[in-house]
């Protein structure tokens, strides 16, 4: 049989394809519906948080930081409750990382504050002596691309039915307001600016507060909004 396949490239290629595709079909298909169900009460990211998540991605924070707490006592002691699949239901892409050059961040919002983050991103060794992480000063002057974050939120709402503008926790109020079309961007921007102002004030940095007041959100503020959300 193999001798025959080696003289008949078409069937050889078909054979190879079937053999390599097999594992994928078995492993991926059965679990897909299951794993994408959100944990009860998990809310989608606000536009500002999503913008911060995009900053996290742009600067490849995931190259050194994981967001996956494994179910070991040594990990839950250090980082908090181990991670559950339903917590990731709105994570597109996932950001588990594969290397902890720095610590895990999946619940960093529980134990770090806005001003700690601002100090740390400006000069890591000022709060963690001996840190080998570089400073990310450009995030303090770059303006967040809120429009793309809004576009992403609108896209996942439309294409993947992510529950924006819905009452998720059953308290009768809409949890994360977004809107239905690009025309709603202005309102979304105003909401993001309000959220951003709170964080900018928490960082105790004049320059960040002033930028937000001028209607420009520095990337660091969006990033901190995202990091604070990780709980």
């Amino acid at each position, binding site marked *: 049989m193999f001798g025959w396949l*080696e003289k008949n490239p078409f069937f050889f290629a078909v054979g190879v394809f079937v053999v390599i595709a097999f*594992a994928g079909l078995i492993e991926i298909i059965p679990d897909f519906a299951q794993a994408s169900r959100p944990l009860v009460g998990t809310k989608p990211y606000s536009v500002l948080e999503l913008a911060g998540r995009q900053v996290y991605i742009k600067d490849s924070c995931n190259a050194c930081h994981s967001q996956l707490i494994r179910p070991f006592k040594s990990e839950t002691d250090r980082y908090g409750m181990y991670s*559950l699949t339903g917590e990731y239901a709105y994570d597109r*892409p996932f950001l588990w990382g594969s290397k902890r050059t720095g610590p895990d961040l999946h619940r960093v919002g529980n134990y770090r504050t806005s001003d700690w983050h601002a100090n740390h991103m400006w000069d890591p060794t000022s709060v963690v002596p001996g840190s080998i992480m570089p400073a990310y000063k450009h995030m303090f002057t770059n303006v967040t691309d809120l429009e793309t974050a809004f*576009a992403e939120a609108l896209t996942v709402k439309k294409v993947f039915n992510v529950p924006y503008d819905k009452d998720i926790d059953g308290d009768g109020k809409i949890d994360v307001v977004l809107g239905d079309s690009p025309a709603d961007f202005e309102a979304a921007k105003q909401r993001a600016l309000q959220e951003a102002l709170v964080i900018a004030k928490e960082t105790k940095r004049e320059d960040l507060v002033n930028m937000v007041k001028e209607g420009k959100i520095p990337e660091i503020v969006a990033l901190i909004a995202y990091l604070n959300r990780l709980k």
Partner: protein
Amino acid sequence: MQNPAVEYDYTVAKWFSYLAILFGILGMGVGVLIAFQLAFPELNYIFGQYSLFSRLRPIHTNVVAYGFTLSGIWATWYYVGQRVLKVSLKESPFLSGLAKVHFWLYFVTALLAVVSLLFRVTTSKEYAQFEWPLDILVVVIWVMWGISIFGLIGLRREKTLYISMWYYIATFLGVAMLYLFNNMAVPTYLVTGMGDPLHSVSMYAGSNDALVQWWFGHNAVAFVFTVPIIAMIYYFLPKESGQPVYSYKLSLLSFWGLMFVYLWAGGHHLIYSTVPDWMQTMGSIFSVILILPSWGSALNMLLTMKGEWSQLKDSPLIKFMVLASTFYMLSTLEGPIQSIKSVNALAHFTDWIPGHVHDGTLGWVGFMIIAAIMHMAPRFFKREIYSKKLLEAQFWLQTTGIVLYFSSMWIAGITQGMMWRAVDQYGNLAYSFIDTVTVLHPYYTLRAIGGLMYFIGLFMWAYNFYKTMTAARQIEEEPKFASPMAA
């Protein structure tokens, strides 16, 4: 043989060889820099934000995997393909034209990819960072290669596909499937008409995305760093040594075994994560089984040298290839060990993982591409290899570099893994995270030096290749087996 000798067309094989050298130096240069950054963080700022570790790491991995390695794969494809099929690219103006377009489109895409990563355009998925417009270009390039493979097969005089051809075909099919599925994304601009046109959002969320990513990521390793490199060694080792492949049956078992088993092993990247437990265990088990086909190929190559071990002493090219095969064995033993759950609990997220990756990539992939290109050089240029001594020196320098690299990373990884879980007499964690970072400084330094040694070896390689092209003694006819070298 009744056919007259075919005159092969090496134009595009040469171009891809130049590119492999160029991308090798670029990609590993960045690698050396980021390795030194971990030991000496001030080096993060030498080009402002453009030299931050997190910006450069994806550039390092992409340039080495998709620049250096793919160029090496295509350099050998455009050489080996013609020869094992007994047909020249010159016979088909279409295929030889396509080969040139393939090269240029690839070159332009590779440059765009580097620029896009430098300017923060990334999806963040490892080895799949490119945003959707680049993904489309990648698909076009890949389809061109497919046409090249099956076009040349259509014209072949040798009816039976040689073992290397099996592996090239598998590379083409495997990467096509994996790349397409993993990069499925919705461009946000196309849905909403606003925001950054380059931005897209993954089709999969959370654990699903992780599952697809590592099904891809692990098998990108399979089909870029393993399968096509086996294609190379099955051609170049028998050719350079003048020995027939030891066993056809072993190559059959290894090939079909590798194809079936490899894809399952992706789950070992997700052990103790939130993907279902049965999948993690499947990943573990199949990773262990993977030793069989991997060692099958490697042993088949080593046994090809049976009775001819004196060649190992005499020829640096045989040295490179035999050691490549040996590193392949080391790395395919180490991988399964790390996939066992209790070991993975210790090793995952630590430097042992990059250590593992690099004994495979530097030892196996790098050495095989270096050897293949130096074997082809005398055939390209009708000159002998410029300097055997230089090649020997390169071999020893780079081998020492690899050993330094992986030993320091093993120690670093296990040290860090142990410290993360260490507790004091009351059961509290013994170390804060930063303690587990500062302790690694000496190992990071050693690793960077090991990497630097390998990097210097690349310049020796480039120089030797350049001199072979321009200044070495000319030879009358194409050497049949062992490549001629000046002392």
